């Protein structure tokens, strides 16, 4: 019979897991595939440290000033700031990558108590928690400098405040982990996150319009949040400063109640995980669906595109509709057109500095093309192992490129038409020559970029995963190529548009752009055969990079 080892104690297990986390962090650095990733990490580290230390001074000074000048009611704000940071920051970073899954530890023979303690330990080792604890310590130091008599109560309240925060954060984190384990929820979360970030752009116009009186409304709300941890801790410290023992005890009791409830709920969550709760995607129940037989024997409709090109374009459409982030990238430009027209158009808050329609139309067109064509420089990013299907199929690779390019060009055309309609509604008709010049410039810019974008996609592929944000970017060379091409094409477009103004001939730009578009299309078509050869030469690179 095989030997059976003795079980390690809880402390030994905690030590082992701490060591494991350290090794995962250290080994993670080994896999940084470029120097720039490492440089990025160092920068983030430096920035985070500077931010934490800088705010330590702010919290120190805040506590010191408020206690010294007897403005103790303001202490609530400091605790609220820490509470919000501690609870919200981990939620923001949760969707951005695949951190070590805490629940994976359950494969080892841990007791529920050890699992719970490990969970709390994880919570305390996050950046949000470490920085928050540093700020709480700074506040205690500030209090010690200003009013040493407050320190004992503050120490007790701070310990409770930390306990409440760490259990609440782990509770929220555990629920979030359960939600984000499902692909669809993860993508929805990402979409909501991006939308919330974009909506921040509208804060300024909204505040300009409806901002008056909002401060008083916020002040009216404050008394109703007095039972929340930030207020409880802040008010109790303020009570200690006024030697109000009753207030201090009330704060302690409130925080104890919070700690008790959140610890109990967290224990229940961990117990559910401990007993083998399945949180990842599981196959949907099998439901046999009867299909409409008629669709299987539909007539072959003749089209001007080959079935293979159509198949690729269709596949691109389906991928787009299932890629929340890419889909948002398409929804956003028209929204941004509305935003720009509010912010800089005639009738905006800027009024006298409003941008003229003569600049607005081509400017927005350039912006849209910049955004919409960026993915074309790494157009195989989401193929994954499916890239092998393209190489196994009995079609020259130019067919695949053509299908992808036609789909993108149609999409850009639709987006531009929509955005130009919005602009005409918001800004007014810019005149037929300028409108024609804008459209022709757009066609030239798209046709001119696709050939180079294909070269970039084949030469510098970078795998991306749908539903993730961390590390989801094109390769450095592809980014610089896109940047360079767009600057050159933008420069040519600007030159042609200004030439129309200088010569006083408003029809000159549309005519020049029509010629340039024809030349760019010719260049694109003749590039396809070269791209076909390049795809064959880069086949292994593409398969290896995307199937990884």
């Amino acid at each position, binding site marked *: 019979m095989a030997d059976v080892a003795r079980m390690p104690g809880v402390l030994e297990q905690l030590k082992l897991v701490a060591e494991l986390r350290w090794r995962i962090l250290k080994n993670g650095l080994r896999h940084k595939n470029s120097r720039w990733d490492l440089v990025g990490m160092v920068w983030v580290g430096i920035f985070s440290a500077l931010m934490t230390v800088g705010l330590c001074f702010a919290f120190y000074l805040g506590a010191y000033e408020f206690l010294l000048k007897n403005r103790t009611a303001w202490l609530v704000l400091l605790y609220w700031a820490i509470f919000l940071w501690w609870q919200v920051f981990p939620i923001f970073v949760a969707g951005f990558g695949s951190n070590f899954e805490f629940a994976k530890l359950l494969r080892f023979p841990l007791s529920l108590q050890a699992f719970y303690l490990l969970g709390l330990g994880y919570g305390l080792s996050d950046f949000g928690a470490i920085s928050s604890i540093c700020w709480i310590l700074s506040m205690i130091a500030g209090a010690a400098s200003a009013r040493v008599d407050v320190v004992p109560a503050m120490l007790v309240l701070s310990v409770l405040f930390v306990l409440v925060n760490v259990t609440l954060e782990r509770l929220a984190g555990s629920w979030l982990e359960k939600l984000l384990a499902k692909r669809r929820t993860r993508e929805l979360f990402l979409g909501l996150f991006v939308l919330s970030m974009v909506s921040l752009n509208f804060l300024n116009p909204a505040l300009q319009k409806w901002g008056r009186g909002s401060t008083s409304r916020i002040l009216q709300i404050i008394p109703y949040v007095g039972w929340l941890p930030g207020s409880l801790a802040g008010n109790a410290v303020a009570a200690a400063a006024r030697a109000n023992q009753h207030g201090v005890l009330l704060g302690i009791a409130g925080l104890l109640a919070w700690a008790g409830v959140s610890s109990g709920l967290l224990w229940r969550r961990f117990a559910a995980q401990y007993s083998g709760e399945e949180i990842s995607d599981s196959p949907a129940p099998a439901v046999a669906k009867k299909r409409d037989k008629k669709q299987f024997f539909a007539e072959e409709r003749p089209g001007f595109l080959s079935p293979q090109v159509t198949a690729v374009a269709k596949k691109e459409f389906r991928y787009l509709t299932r890629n929340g982030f890419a889909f948002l990238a398409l929804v956003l430009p028209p929204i941004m057109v509305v935003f720009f027209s509010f912010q800089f158009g005639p009738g905006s808050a800027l009024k006298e500095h409003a941008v003229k329609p003569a600049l607005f139309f081509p400017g927005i067109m350039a912006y849209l093309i910049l955004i919409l064509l960026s993915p074309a420089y790494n157009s195989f990013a989401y193929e994954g192992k499916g890239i092998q299907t393209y190489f*196994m199929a009995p079609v020259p690779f130019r067919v695949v490129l053509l299908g992808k390019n036609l789909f993108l060009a149609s999409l850009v055309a639709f987006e531009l038409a929509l955005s130009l309609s919005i602009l005409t509604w918001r800004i007014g008709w810019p005149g037929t020559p300028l409108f024609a010049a804008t459209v022709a410039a757009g066609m030239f810019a798209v046709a001119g970029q696709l050939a180079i974008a294909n070269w970039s996609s084949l030469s510098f592929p970078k795998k991306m995963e749908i539903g993730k944000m961390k590390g989801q970017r094109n390769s450095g060379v592809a980014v610089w190529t896109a940047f360079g091409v767009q600057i050159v094409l933008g420069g040519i477009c600007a030159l042609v548009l200004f030439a129309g103004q200088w010569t006083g001939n408003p029809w000159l730009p549309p005519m020049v752009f029509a010629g340039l578009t024809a030349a760019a299309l010719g260049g694109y078509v003749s590039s396809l055969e070269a791209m076909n050869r390049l795809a064959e030469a880069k086949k292994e690179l593409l398969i290896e990079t995307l199937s990884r």
Partner: protein
Amino acid sequence: MSEIAIATQKLTRQFGALTAVDAIDLRVQAGQFFGFLGPNGAGKSTTIKMLTGLLAPTSGRMELLGLDFQAHPVEVKRQIGVVPEGMGLFERLTGIEYLRFVGRMYGLDRATTEKRTEELLEFMQLADREKTLVADYSHGMQKKLALAAAVIYGPRILFLDEPFEGVDALAAGALKTLLGRMAERGVTIFLTSHVLEIVERLCSHVAIIHQGRLVAQGSMEELRAGVGESEGEKKTLEQIFLSIVGQSGAEQSRLEELTWLT
């Protein structure tokens, strides 16, 4: 004499200093059920990748159905079906969408694509999951879908890299029957598997690759004769494989070191 389906001459593939496949000469007759065996890292998948156009050879020639692959890649690809190592599926399509896509890419008309898609989904027991994303399929379901995609256009040669891995016993049984019938109809099946019992049961001919070199090739009887079968004892493919690859002794001595376990 029957047609040669696959023929390679000094087919070689190097990755830097490593020679993954070293000048192999394979000959597979049309309609053969051919097993291609070897230990992990022997060069099986690299060979299949070269034979299916996913990897360019460093040197050597390969002809499929009498056509030089490098000179006529599209014509060759039209006649071969592949289940590659990683299955090569588009994970963000549903099962039905993927089969339709493959059918159209191989030039089937819409009606034929639809009919065959429906029939294959039924056969592979995927009909009730046809609208589920491939990403949400289990490993076995993905394997069945990859197999369906490999046969939808009726290939003349089928390359299968570990086709039964992760497939349940019911589906595996149906697949073996299907493959057997395809072979009877003249389709050449080139299969790799680590499950030697399956290979022994299905394949009429076998080749063994070890450290990039082809160390044996022939019918089961020829292989048995090659390893010196004793009278009255019929060696299994596993015994033949171990005696050719020569690992059994080393395995035994390694096992003896694990006294705490054994």
